[in-house]
């Protein structure tokens, strides 16, 4: 849902509760990416699986036609696999992939189209992105063409470039037919258009970088026997791409390509070995940091602005500055890196409970702890146990889920319900005001706290009260934190004493609690919260909301048991939903 519901009808809540009770919506069978199952050009033993039902080739790392040697029970799990719609690279993935293809770290590309069906502007921006790649030629740190391009045409060089660069751009070797098509494009440019050798190579490069295999996830594999319909076990190259874009948000590196070519990704050991190698890369850290940021909404979503775009009332928050927001972002990234990649901690618990914070002077002051002497220096500190516990009690999350002047218990409560517990609340009525509730500046409603005002404006109307009976108490647990995440005993505006106690009535976190620290302590014990976390990350990996039961069992059930984020990533990659794809019928 795009906008966060601030007021939801009782009817909607009742309907949902009656339907699913307070259980999380984790059931259902998913799968799906559109797959390129019929590669008519694969005529030369290239490592791409042929059309479902056609003969398979094992050359060049193509998986076998059985269970791929992975030991996966294919039958009933794969029967439940659903076809996923055709996906294409995201704008960030396009940028990262182009960056890696030519080795220009700061390459800027204009492609920004996230529409389900690519727009004309998106196609235009793809072309402009290839222009940007060519314009950065002097900064290329990867040997792209492999020969002197200012001189006479070099047919051997052109063919080598087409094969070599094409394999990286398409994330798999080119078929002979594809290679021949690019040769024709090259020749047309060189002889037909009378372009120079270099311009002709540029034409080929530009064509490759806008071609379907570059832009779209056209995946190949081998049909699985004894499965209803057509399900493919993805070949090594398709799997390498899925792994790379999930764990790195970019194309595979040479080692992953080599593992794909050697068929290593079709064995559990080989797959695990690559996952561990990839997780050790800085690219994996950046990806996990990005996933956590998305989960916390600090990158902005719906009505939530990105952390960096926030503004706070200067009279109430003289500490506010864009630099402070940047420091909050740094703090989140550092904590994620520490608890997921460096510590032996299980990850999930530490994300929600850690009191360690990486702060500069301003952020230390906001947290009321001794920190470094200036804002250029960051250091690890330990935050007060009674005030902070994990990411949900840090400045970044608390600032985003607040207004410019006051904390927003409704925004915070909705977030916990929807994104930490996966409780969908439904659409609010259109008259619902999504402006954070604030004390009237003239105090016409008397000296009320924000908490009291929220109840006054949402609980008297039965239309609103149904959902807000769930939302408000959850959000009230965060009342000690103002709109900038400062911990307070009295409200910044009214001066009234803060009451953060509340009783939750939802799922396995239903209990009276003192504050958000207690909530975080409860969430790490919550099956619902762990399942929801795993659900969100699996959605990101598979680009879908529903999974086959085996994926659900292997990924979510396992994470509920372990809470280990790195293992979560591994289990997602190993799951049937990740390694198989259903081919849609005609």
């Amino acid at each position, binding site marked *: 849902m795009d906008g966060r519901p601030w007021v939801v009808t009782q009817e909607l809540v009742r309907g949902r509760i009656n339907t699913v009770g307070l259980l999380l919506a984790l059931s259902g069978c998913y799968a799906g990416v559109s797959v390129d199952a019929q590669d008519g050009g694969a005529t030369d033993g290239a490592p791409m699986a042929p059309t479902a039902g056609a003969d398979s080739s094992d050359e060049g790392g193509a998986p076998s036609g059985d269970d791929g040697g992975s030991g996966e029970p294919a039958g009933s799990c794969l029967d439940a696999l659903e076809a996923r719609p055709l996906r294409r690279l995201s704008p960030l993935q396009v940028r990262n992939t182009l960056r890696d293809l030519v080795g220009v770290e700061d390459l800027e590309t204009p492609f920004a189209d996230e529409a389900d069906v690519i727009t004309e502007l998106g196609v235009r921006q793809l072309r402009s992105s290839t222009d940007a790649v060519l314009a950065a030629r002097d900064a290329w740190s990867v040997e792209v063409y492999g020969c002197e391009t200012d001189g006479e045409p070099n047919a051997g060089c052109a063919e080598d470039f087409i094969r070599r660069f094409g394999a990286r751009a398409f994330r798999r070797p080119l078929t002979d037919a594809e290679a021949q098509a690019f040769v024709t494009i090259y020749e047309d440019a060189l002889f037909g258009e009378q372009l120079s050798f270099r311009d002709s190579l540029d034409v080929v490069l530009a064509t490759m970088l806008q071609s379907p295999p570059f832009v779209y996830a056209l995946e190949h594999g081998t049909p699985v026997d004894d499965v209803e319909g057509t399900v493919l076990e993805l070949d090594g190259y398709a799997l390498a791409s899925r792994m790379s874009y999930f764990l790195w948000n970019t194309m595979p590196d040479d080692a992953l390509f080599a593992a794909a070519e050697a068929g290593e990704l079709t064995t559990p050991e080989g797959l695990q070995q690559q996952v561990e190698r990839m997780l050790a890369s800085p690219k994996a850290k950046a990806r996990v940091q990005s996933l956590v940021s998305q989960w916390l909404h600090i990158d902005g979503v719906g009505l939530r602005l990105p952390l960096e775009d926030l503004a706070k009332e200067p009279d109430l928050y003289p500490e506010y500055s864009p630099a402070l927001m940047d420091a909050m972002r740094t703090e989140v990234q550092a904590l994620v890196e520490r608890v997921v990649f460096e510590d032996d901690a299980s990850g999930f618990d530490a994300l929600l409970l850690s009191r360690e914070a990486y702060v500069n002077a301003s952020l230390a002051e906001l947290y009321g702890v001794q920190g470094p002497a200036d804002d250029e220096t960051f250091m690890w500190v330990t935050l007060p146990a009674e005030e902070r516990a994990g990411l949900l009690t840090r400045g970044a999350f608390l600032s985003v889920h607040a207004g410019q002047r006051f904390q927003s218990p409704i925004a915070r409560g909705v977030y916990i319900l929807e994104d930490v517990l996966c409780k969908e609340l439904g659409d609010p009525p259109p008259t619902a005001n999504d402006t954070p509730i604030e004390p009237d500046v003239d105090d016409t409603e008397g000296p009320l706290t924000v908490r009291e005002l929220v109840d006054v404006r949402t609980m008297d109307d039965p239309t609103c009260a149904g959902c807000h009976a769930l939302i408000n108490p959850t959000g009230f647990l965060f009342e000690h934190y103002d709109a900038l995440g400062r911990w307070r005993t009295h409200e910044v505006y009214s001066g009234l004493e803060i009451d953060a106690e509340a009783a939750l009535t939802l799922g396995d976190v239903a209990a009276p609690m003192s504050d958000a620290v207690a909530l975080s302590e409860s969430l790490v014990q919550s099956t619902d919260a762990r399942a929801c976390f795993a659900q969100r990350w699996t959605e990101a990996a598979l680009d879908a909301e529903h999974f086959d039961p085996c994926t659900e069992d292997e990924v979510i059930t396992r994470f509920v048991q372990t809470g280990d984020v790195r293992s979560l990533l591994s289990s997602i990659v190993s799951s049937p939903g990740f390694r198989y794809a259903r081919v849609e019928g*005609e």
Partner: protein
Amino acid sequence: MFKDFKHSGRRSFLRGLGGMALGLPLLEYTHGNAWARGLGAPKRFITVFSHGGTISNQGKTWRHDGQGSHHGEDLWRPADWDALTLGPIHESVQPHIDKLILIEGVDNKSAIEQDQYNAGAHGIANRTALTAGDQDEDGAKSPSIDQVIAERLAAEQPTPFERVHLSVHGHNYGTPYFRGANESMSGFREPQEAWASLFAGVAEDGEPSPEAQRLLSMRISALDGLLESYTEVKQRVGASDRHKIDAHLDHLRALEKELTNPVVCTRPDDPGDVGGAEHIGPLHVDLLVAAMRCGLANVGALEIGDILTPWTAAGNATGVGLGHSLGHDARDIGPTGPKASMYDTWFAEALDNRRWRWSLMRRLLDGLDDPNFVEADGGTLLDQSLVLFTSEFRNASGHYAYNMPLMLAGSAGGYFETGRFLDYNTFGPGPTFEYESQHSTHNLFTSILHAMGGDDAHFGNETAVYQGPLEGLV
């Protein structure tokens, strides 16, 4: 692998067309000169879509009287009905009053009927605002009115671009522009990107430089390969995904069309890398006007996000973080509202916000109605054009798709009788708080199709009650 070279037939055709076009421009426009094709003045259709409604007391079948929590003002309504005096929001376009039609009392019935609250709702109102059609969370199920017109006019009046779409980007609940089912359209956000794309094929003297010719050859060569590869892959994706490849192919063909239909015209200056919306908005308008003068497209769109306007005199005094929140606060600043004390502050900020948006409309109308740029019939571009200003609802506090904010400018070559205010409220235009309409944007869009030369009986989803054009417009 390298065989005897044999030029593809298709490429030969393109190369020949490109060469001819460069030597003998197909279309010729120059500043101050009239349309030169001898086909008469072309019709144009431009939409200005301002996200987030306007300042109004409009409810469903009522208007707020200003006694409760909602304010009672409607700043969209004309200040003086009989004297044709516009209201506070759009008073800046008063000088163009003879070429305007203000329309009151027309609902977006499509949104209302598909919303569980019979109001309009987030997203639903957006997806139906210009389609008057069916929709779901994946998108509208039919093209928006501008796309329909763009396709029709392109067949009659070929231009390099089917439509030109510029966006002053900001928060919104979805675009109203759709090319087809579940296929949204988006506009250039950066003026420089728009300029570079729109005017890349414009040759000021008809003689492209060798460098321009080289780049054109490279682009055509790449497009040739891309068209073949997308055509080939289309056969290999699942049936439910083919529309995605089809769309990609269509867009590639559009790019090809630009390259093979160069225009001779005076390019506007490179707008450069500009900052915020306060700079982007006027530059976008200037580019849109220039594109129309150069005949780059028959259809244009200026999309304005639900932005805040801190650069105006009233600034962001309310302290809201989103334009959307500013809209919602309309329900809380009335005398009994929880934000009653913010009444003056809210109105000042909201009015300045909408006035800034209308300053873009004024700039657009000034540009289109510039007497220095007349067409073969002696009229200005505006005379032959039709400009529609609208939003997804009127009163942003309740997302009511009732009594849509609608303003037409230009007469589409005399088709519409301009210089009028029209009200379709059953209870009339008088000072009434009652409201009821039997008219929908279905009807208005059908009228617009007629103005553009069509004879359609209907536009939008098949809602029998709202068949036919909007009576009284012509």
